[in-house]
């Protein structure tokens, strides 16, 4: 009998009323300064969200909102590198140019919606730095908890259709998206590139709507790129310009920032941006999150409790979710909710009856159809990306 098994057996036979000994270490928490400055605050068009920074506006969605299949627009997280741009729909233009394009184009909103077929996709939008604040040791940056993400139905026109209308040349290599947001002082302009295969994926959109309404200003009105399966750094907001290049784009936010050590998280799928040392962050890693009950709500001994959550990955789809109540010795399958599409998250639920008072730790892990699962231990990296450590949520049983 190994030690883990022994622990399980010894706790399993304890009569009700005795404390369950802790089997697992406590989760890493946000830095103290992030906890105290992370107040609830509402910006125009949004309900109160967890404020990470006022300027530029960075606001996180409270976890309880993720009980809904789709994240309401007024609760969807907000993330900007510089100030919110002011864009009027009448003046808005989308330019398509560059050495990879045969016929440079300029479209109004009406041009785009009249000329091209509308398309939609349900997809998780997750900031590269989601859960950065839970890194141990901590790394500098916006100290996000669990809520720099959301799930929505995005509707717009296919990037592919727009690029093909402009005509791609044989040497087209990357598509660089740039928004109307202006850099501060002499800081580098926020622009991101995509490899052609991802730009031409029929699910990659220039979206005008999310969840049947125009994009909120703070989520990129009037148009943003939707790059399903990839982290939100590529989902350029207030999109204004597309350049098709014949060389690897070397802007700061591609070449220097949003990088992970080479090979640490598998292949990037973006060869023209790989270097000897590192790769651009690209696909979202398989992950899951407990969204109910509230961690503060006490559970009752012997009363049926249903734990609910969500699971998602970079687009292969979720094949299963497992829950452990004994520190990871035994895992049981959770019941999956309906499939909303491979880029959407998937709800899951698991019912149990707490057997003893004290702390009941619930652990959850998701499996993706590509065979991947979550990690038991953080894969630490300097920028604080891809935190998909198996969650351990403590509930108090009374």
């Amino acid at each position, binding site marked *: 009998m190994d030690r883990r098994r022994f622990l399980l057996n010894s706790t399993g036979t304890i009569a009700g009323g005795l404390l369950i000994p802790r089997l697992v270490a406590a989760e890493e928490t946000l830095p103290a300064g992030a906890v105290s*400055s992370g107040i609830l605050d509402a910006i125009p068009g949004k309900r109160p969200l967890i404020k990470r920074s006022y300027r530029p506006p960075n606001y996180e969605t409270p976890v309880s909102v993720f009980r809904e299949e789709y994240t309401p627009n007024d609760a969807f997280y907000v993330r900007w590198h510089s100030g919110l741009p002011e864009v009027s729909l009448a003046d808005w233009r989308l330019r398509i140019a560059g050495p990879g394009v045969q016929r440079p184009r300029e479209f109004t909103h009406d041009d785009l919606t009249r000329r091209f077929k509308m398309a939609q996709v349900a997809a998780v939008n997750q900031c590269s730095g989601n859960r950065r604040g839970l890194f141990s040791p901590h790394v500098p940056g916006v100290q996000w908890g669990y809520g720099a993400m959301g799930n929505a139905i995005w509707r717009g026109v296919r990037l592919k259709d727009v690029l093909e209308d402009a005509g791609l040349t044989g040497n087209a290599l990357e598509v660089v998206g740039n928004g109307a947001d202006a850099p501060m002082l002499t800081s580098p302009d926020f622009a991101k590139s995509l490899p052609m295969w991802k730009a031409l994926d029929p699910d990659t959109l220039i979206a005008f709507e999310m969840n049947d309404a125009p994009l909120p200003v703070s989520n990129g009105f009037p148009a943003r790129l939707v790059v399903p399966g990839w982290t939100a750094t590529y989902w350029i907001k207030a999109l204004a310009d597309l350049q098709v290049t014949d060389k690897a784009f070397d802007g700061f936010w591609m070449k220097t920032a949003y990088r992970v050590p080479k090979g640490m998280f598998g292949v990037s799928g973006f060869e023209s941006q790989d270097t000897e040392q590192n790769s651009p962050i690209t696909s979202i890693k398989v992950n899951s999150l407990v969204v109910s009950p509230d961690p503060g709500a006490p559970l009752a001994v012997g009363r049926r409790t249903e734990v609910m959550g969500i699971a998602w990955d970079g687009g292969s789809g979720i094949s299963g979710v497992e829950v452990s109540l004994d520190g990871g010795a035994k895992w049981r399958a959770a019941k999956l909710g309906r499939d909303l599409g491979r880029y959407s998250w998937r709800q899951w639920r698991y019912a149990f009856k707490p057997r003893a008072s004290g702390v009941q730790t619930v652990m959850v892990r998701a499996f993706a159809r590509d065979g991947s699962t979550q990690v038991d231990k953080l894969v630490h990296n300097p920028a604080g990306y891809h935190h998909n450590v198996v969650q351990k949520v403590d509930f108090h049983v009374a």
Partner: protein
Amino acid sequence: MWRDSRVAAAFIAATLLAAVPVRADESALVLADGDGVGQVKASCSICHSVDYILMNSPFQDATGWDKTVTKMVKVMGAPITPEDSKIIVAYLAKHYGKDSGG
């Protein structure tokens, strides 16, 4: 063309909203008193609210804060003199550093 007038109306409303700057309550943020707080407020606040400092504490030592300030100057173009940079790093390490206790 919007599928219905409700979406069109919402789009117009969103356009009007775009002209209103995000309400900033950053004036309520309080930094610890001490040598250098003036330089921190004057320099860091040009581009961002100082909750960036608060949330990134207390886990960086002087070397960590120096890296951050250097990045702000060299990459982000913050107009901070080398003398002020030293004062700012010393302030951040003392009041928002790993061993600041707060």
